[in-house]
């Protein structure tokens, strides 16, 4: 079991580092997935609302938001808390990225994306992570995870991402 957790953990770290590159990601879509708790990485099956094993929760690094929203639900907060645990115990730095869907004006979207990133960063710092370990950047609508002009694409783009540096 532990080996599986470690593999998932390493994959999660690798995945979160790769989100920093300007690589075009192919989408592996779950239709009808809800905004919260939906994964964009196929390898984390069944990690939805389980409390078992900090490794599975922390492996999730992307959090989704409703239109014009930047609030996090309890499940996401729990998941972010496990990132906080890692940062407080092991040190290191995390960059929190905020993103929006494509609609609306680009610079207003940059500001909205920052609200989302800051919401995540605030959870980290509330759990004791030092503010010097956390940086925030917003890409607004400039780095969509999924291209497309409908809600199935937009819901995948309204997100915050924890990326370890």
């Amino acid at each position, binding site marked *: 079991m532990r080996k599986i957790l470690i593999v998932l953990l390493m994959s999660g770290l690798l995945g979160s580092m790769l989100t*920093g*590159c*300007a*690589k*075009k990601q192919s989408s592996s879509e779950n239709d009808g997935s809800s905004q919260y708790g939906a994964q964009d990485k196929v390898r984390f099956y069944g990690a939805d609302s389980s409390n078992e094993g900090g490794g599975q929760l922390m492996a999730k690094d992307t959090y989704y938001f409703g239109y014009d929203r930047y609030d996090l639900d309890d499940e996401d907060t729990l998941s972010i808390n496990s990132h906080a645990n890692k940062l407080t115990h092991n040190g290191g730095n995390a*960059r929190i*990225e905020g993103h929006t869907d*494509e*609609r*609306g*004006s*680009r*610079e*207003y979207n*940059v*500001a*909205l994306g*920052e*609200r989302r990133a800051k919401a995540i960063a605030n959870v980290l710092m509330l759990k004791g992570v030092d503010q010097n370990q956390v*940086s*925030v*950047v*917003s*890409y*607004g609508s*400039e*780095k969509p995870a999924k*291209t497309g*002009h409908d809600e199935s694409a937009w819901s995948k783009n309204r997100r915050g991402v924890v*990326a370890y540096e």
Partner: protein
Amino acid sequence: MSIHKKIFSMIFCLCLLGVMPSAVASLRTLIIDGGQIDGLPVAVVPFSVEGQDKSQIEDIATVIQNDLQTSGQFKVLSNQNIRQFPKSHIEVQYPYWQSLKIEDLVVGSVQKNGSLFTVSFELLDVLKQKSGEGKIPPLLSMRFDNIQAKDLRALAHHISDLIFQKIIGTQGIFSTRIAYVTVKETNQGLIRSLEVSDYDGYGPKTLFQSRYPLMSPNWSPDGKKIAFVSFEKERSSINTVEVSTGRIDRITQFPGLNSAPAWSPDGRKLAAVLSKDVGPKIYIIDLASKKLNQLTTGPGIDTEPFWASDGRSIVFTSDRGGKPQIYRVALNSGHVERLTFAGTYNAKPSLTPDGKNLITLHRNEEGLFNIALHNLTNGAVRVLTQTGLNDSPTLAPNGMMVLYGAQEAGEGILSAVTLDGRLKLRLPARAGSVQEPAWSPFNF
């Protein structure tokens, strides 16, 4: 690209890890895309070219025809309907042009002297010429000597400007330029470029390239520099690039937002959006001293500053009232007033040069994002576009046309519409997407 610029790009794009993108991204030509092709009927006769291989000379008359036609103010006679080819008013038979319902006529000639050219043109009032009377003098009659071949296109645009000013009474935009961002997919990922071209898409030049997003190009009032936002190494920063040399200067790289730069009309300051302390709020940066002055305060997001032409106020987007709307702040007092009340969302404001009208990105109750014109005197609002997925409106410096980002077949293109709603135009990229246009000022 010249060798100098190639080396410059390589030094500046070490982040590309040795990737040199293939062909320079460029736009197609600005073409008419619908609307009413109406306006003053004019004809531009192909200029006579004396004693030279015509294929090597820029077709001046075609450039002038395209300029006048795309302005939306003229209905230009097509070449296939032209049967007489006068090169000066002496040769013009007015009854022929009057039978074609032409009101103004442009004729001209090109002569080669050594390696340089002499270009002459006349603008003639066909409507006023009465038969049986002596020929009335031309509205314009000019000669340009010692023109190099490479400058013939620019001269054609200048002649268009002279014609436009004479007939319409307003400064033309045919010698202006646009800046814009292109996004192309390569096997190394997405490559973004900041480019400039003539207003019609001709002659694109790459100023900066990156694997990271580029945003918000904004011209200095003298047309010599462009401010823009970059995200090198996952951090936002505001920079300026000198158009003639490609030299980059970093202006800000604070924690948080470094966003939406806007040059003051006197060229000495940049308004910008930062969130390092509170925010996002609008700050004024003195370019010489780099001193910061926080201009807006209070809750919510303030962004997208745009200077009034007298430099005494700035209009901006703010959601301090709940949803994004446009506000104006007076620079000396800090007093803020709200300007837009129609629609559920207004952002990315531009003022027309006379300050009387406001262009915004506007969302209606159905959630469609279009470009809207707000009359600040009487509050009337007119929506200028229909497609619903538009952004980044930028006004021509004579206030007569808006260029904006649109979507076509999954790619970003540029589109334009005249403020009187007469004409729609489009300007797609040759490959990939183009977005975030910024129209240059008049001066160069």
